[in-house]
């Protein structure tokens, strides 16, 4: 059996569990005393509950309790106790806290019964009277009141200060484009609904299976809100059925399930219905204005990008929408502004490539508009304004192979065969459009820990409280560990998703490979170090005076890189030392002193072909090439899948997805998968993914940049640009549905 390696297209190590139905998700754990909770949500968008009558529900045999603000226990009272690791500034939702209703779909009661069907039936019998207050759910009505977001959200950076004099430069530019771009709220809709199963253990402690992208975040939240010690709560989530950001913050079913379990002293499961999946966070509704001024040869002289996204009235959700515009292109005069405006909706939450998806949809549409105005090839225009350094922070890029993305993507797509003018390519009744856009995402690393146990039979167990929402965490971590110790992949077991393990960063922002991967690398290096030390004590050891750089681990053995001495099996080293196992635990901390001297981003160039039926207005994406510079690729097979997923999300955003509000009711009305359209098999064409070579020894010890986000960024703009190229119609409001083209 060969050594597991990074860079090899290994099948997923959890593949068998996933194709046989053995992978267990949060709502699938059980206990003999399990009872079921069903959530009752508010029917109004703003106001007060004046009466809540659960008598009829409670009269059904088998209904155990109905929790409302009237009988829920008083819990933590400080906002900071309710604020999770990634909460934005403001006052987080406190379910069942008081009679106030802050958004339609707010949880206002939990019915607990002996069976799921009974809990659901009883939930329909809870009668609620409201005193409604006027609500506002239209972004245009509050846009003028946009404000700088309150501080507190991790990862949010206010836009950089203006450079030069953008407004004057724009006025003076020979060629100008200026437009407003908009997309609606978009719900993540992972296939697995949010769910929590709380098991009450014999000693009263709680084992919680929660759909979360961070078990530590859920554990800490429960401890703070309910006043519990961390050893009374263990969160265990080995598999997550898709997150995309929706599991970054604890969702309300976690709170409700824990509340009921503590009150009833019974194990409780609460699963949200698909309809209720539209009462949790979403990608915020955002309107953006982009103005570009250029010389006639295409050189940018002015760039203005202003964005307003919606938030709730009680928290200031915010994201990095505009900073990318200051980094991607060279331009002497830029002004970037961002604000948030409150609506009577629940707080948005990060959704796949939060901010970048939004900002690049506008920026990359505007660049295409400028290319059209200049009569220049859109790819040539981007190359003309290629940024060689980060002008906003006046520092170099740690690596930037975007030019290679442009070149390889264009070659694979056949870009040179494109005709420049809009409406110039046809196939019978179909108008054909070819276009492209750029993607960008920040490469990040956060502190994470891992532990490892190597046994004398050369089996390695590595663990970190990370997550597996679908990227292939089990697989790439196993590959990293196997490679470091020269073991076959099958000899490594990686464990995650358990607060009993060393803490890891929350699974988001494409930073798991860099953060948890670096921790796995570090703990394996610690094992290497121990093994080398032990090997040096063996008689006639060839390793005397040698450092780790001089040796390598291959085929379960330690040997000199020079190959001048025979390899020594790991088993023999441990046998000589009389050890049955070696354990290590390590924290990997980002080298901020070094990293902060550079800007580190992943990039992509996405090329698409669309066909538009001129009579019907239907748009079909016929092929996509996505060329990605994402640093080192640990597993080309799972890496490609991540990019495929991002592109599919981009197709949905461009053409289908739209959380529709009824402003009279103040609520999302297409709250199901029949009416909220996500791409299906028939909507997705062949997608060609290319990873260009990119070396980066600054970004983290592995040289990876993360791939969960970059695949989606730019896709919506590329499709909108292709629709323009096909039809001559510039659609600036997503999704591009047929009514907008007729």
């Amino acid at each position, binding site marked *: 059996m060969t050594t597991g390696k990074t860079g090899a297209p290994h099948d997923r190590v959890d593949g*068998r569990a996933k*194709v046989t139905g053995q992978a267990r998700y949060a709502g699938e754990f059980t206990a003999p005393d399990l009872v079921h909770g069903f959530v009752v949500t508010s029917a109004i968008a703003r106001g007060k509950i004046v009466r809540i009558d659960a008598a009829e529900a409670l009269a059904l045999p088998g209904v155990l309790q109905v929790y409302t603000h009237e009988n829920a226990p008083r819990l933590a009272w400080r906002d900071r106790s309710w604020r999770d690791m990634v909460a934005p500034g403001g006052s987080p939702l406190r379910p069942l806290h008081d009679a106030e209703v802050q958004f339609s779909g707010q949880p206002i009661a939990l019915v607990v019964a002996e069976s799921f069907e009974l809990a659901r039936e009883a939930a329909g019998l809870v009668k609620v009277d409201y005193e409604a207050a006027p609500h506002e759910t239209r972004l245009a009505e509050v846009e003028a009141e946009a404000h700088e977001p309150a501080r507190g959200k991790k990862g949010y950076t206010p836009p950089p200060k203006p450079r030069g004099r953008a407004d004057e430069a724009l006025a003076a530019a020979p060629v100008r484009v200026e437009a407003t771009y908009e997309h609606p709220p978009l719900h993540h809709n992972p296939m*697995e609904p949010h769910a929590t199963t709380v098991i009450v253990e014999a000693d009263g402690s709680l084992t919680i299976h929660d759909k979360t992208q961070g078990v530590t975040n859920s554990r800490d939240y429960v401890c703070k809100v309910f006043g519990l010690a961390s050893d009374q709560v263990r969160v265990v989530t080995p598999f997550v*059925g898709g997150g995309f950001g929706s599991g970054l913050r604890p969702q309300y079913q976690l709170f409700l399930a824990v509340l009921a379990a503590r009150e009833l002293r019974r194990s409780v499961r609460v699963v949200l219905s698909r309809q209720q999946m539209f009462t949790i966070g979403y990608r915020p509704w955002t309107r953006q204005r982009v103005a570009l001024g250029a010389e006639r040869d295409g050189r940018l002289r002015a760039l203005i990008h202003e964005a307003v996204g919606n938030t709730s009235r009680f928290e200031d959700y915010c994201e990095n929408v505009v900073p990318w515009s200051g980094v991607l292109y060279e331009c002497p005069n830029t002004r970037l502004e961002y604000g948030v405006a409150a609506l009577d909706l629940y707080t948005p939450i990060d959704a796949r490539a939060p901010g970048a998806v939004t900002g690049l949809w506008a920026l990359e549409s505007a660049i295409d508009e400028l290319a059209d105005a200049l009569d220049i090839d859109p790819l040539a225009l981007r190359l003309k304004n290629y940024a060689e350094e980060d002008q906003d922070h006046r520092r170099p890029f740690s690596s930037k192979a975007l030019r290679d993305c442009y070149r390889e993507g264009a070659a694979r797509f056949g870009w040179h065969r494109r005709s420049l003018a809009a409406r110039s390519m046809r196939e019978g009744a179909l108008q054909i459009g070819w276009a492209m856009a750029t993607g960008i995402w920040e490469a990040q690393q956060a502190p994470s820990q891992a532990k490892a146990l190597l046994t004398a039979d050369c089996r390695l167990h590595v663990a970190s409280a990370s997550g597996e929402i679908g990227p292939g965490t089990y697989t790439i971590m196993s590959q990293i560990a196997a490679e470091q110790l020269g073991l076959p992949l099958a000899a490594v077991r990686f464990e995650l998703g358990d607060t009993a393990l060393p803490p890891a960063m929350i699974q988001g922002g494409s930073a798991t490979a860099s953060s948890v991967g670096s921790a796995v690398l570090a703990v394996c290096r610690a094992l290497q170090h121990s093994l080398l030390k032990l090997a040096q004590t063996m008689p006639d050891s060839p390793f005397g005076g040698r450092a780790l750089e001089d040796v390598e681990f291959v085929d379960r053995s330690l040997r000199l890189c020079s190959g001048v001495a025979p390899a020594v099996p790991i088993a023999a080293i441990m046998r000589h030392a009389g050890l049955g196992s070696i354990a290590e635990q390590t924290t990997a901390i980002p080298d901020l002193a070094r990293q902060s001297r550079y800007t580190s981003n992943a990039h992509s160039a996405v090329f698409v072909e669309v066909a538009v039926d001129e009579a019907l207005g239907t748009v079909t994406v016929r092929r996509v090439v996505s060329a990605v510079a994402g640093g080192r690729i640990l597993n080309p097979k799972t890496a490609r899948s991540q990019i495929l997923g991002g592109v599919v999300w981009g197709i949905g955003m461009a053409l289908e997805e739209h959380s529709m509000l009824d402003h009279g009711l103040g609520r999302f009305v297409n709250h199901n998968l029949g009416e909220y359209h996500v791409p299906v098999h028939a909507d997705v064409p062949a997608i060609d993914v290319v990873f260009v070579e990119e070396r980066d020894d600054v970004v983290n010890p592995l040289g990876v940049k993360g791939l969960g986000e970059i695949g989606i960024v730019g896709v919506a703009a590329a499709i909108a640009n292709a629709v323009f190229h096909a039809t001559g119609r510039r659609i600036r409001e997503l999704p591009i549905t047929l009514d907008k083209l007729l």
Partner: protein
Amino acid sequence: MLPGMGDDTCAITLKVNGSTLRLQVAPWTTLLDLLRERLGLTGSKKGCDHGQCGACTVLVDGVRINSCLSLAVMRDGASVTTIEGLAEGDALHPLQQSFIEHDAFQCGYCTPGQLCSAVGLIAEGHAHSEDDIRELMSGNLCRCGAYPNIVAAIGQAMRPRRDA
């Protein structure tokens, strides 16, 4: 009487993954909830409970159905195959193997439904091209966007293996 189910339960017989079961079920219990909650077969997933996502797809008498849209009592006497019944012992079904090789899943939540649906699709015999597979698999949503790999995996499983 089973807790919380009222007095009116019905006796049914189901063959599930080859085992014949005599069950007392409430009329409001769906086949999906019976499988997941009563029989512990959580491989069949609940994504929407409205027949809109396909995650609950199982085979009933060899035909793919959304088990969330079927009450258990409607299936008295039927033979049900779930994801747990596709492999023969340790030997994976060719589609399961093909899904692994093509990385035809990410989070894995839609996967049992995709697989059962693909078994049904192949049995129906109407898919003769990748476009046919795309069209006829469109009732099974995958939010991770593994579609191109799922189509490739099904395509491979449909072709007779040269080495077989």
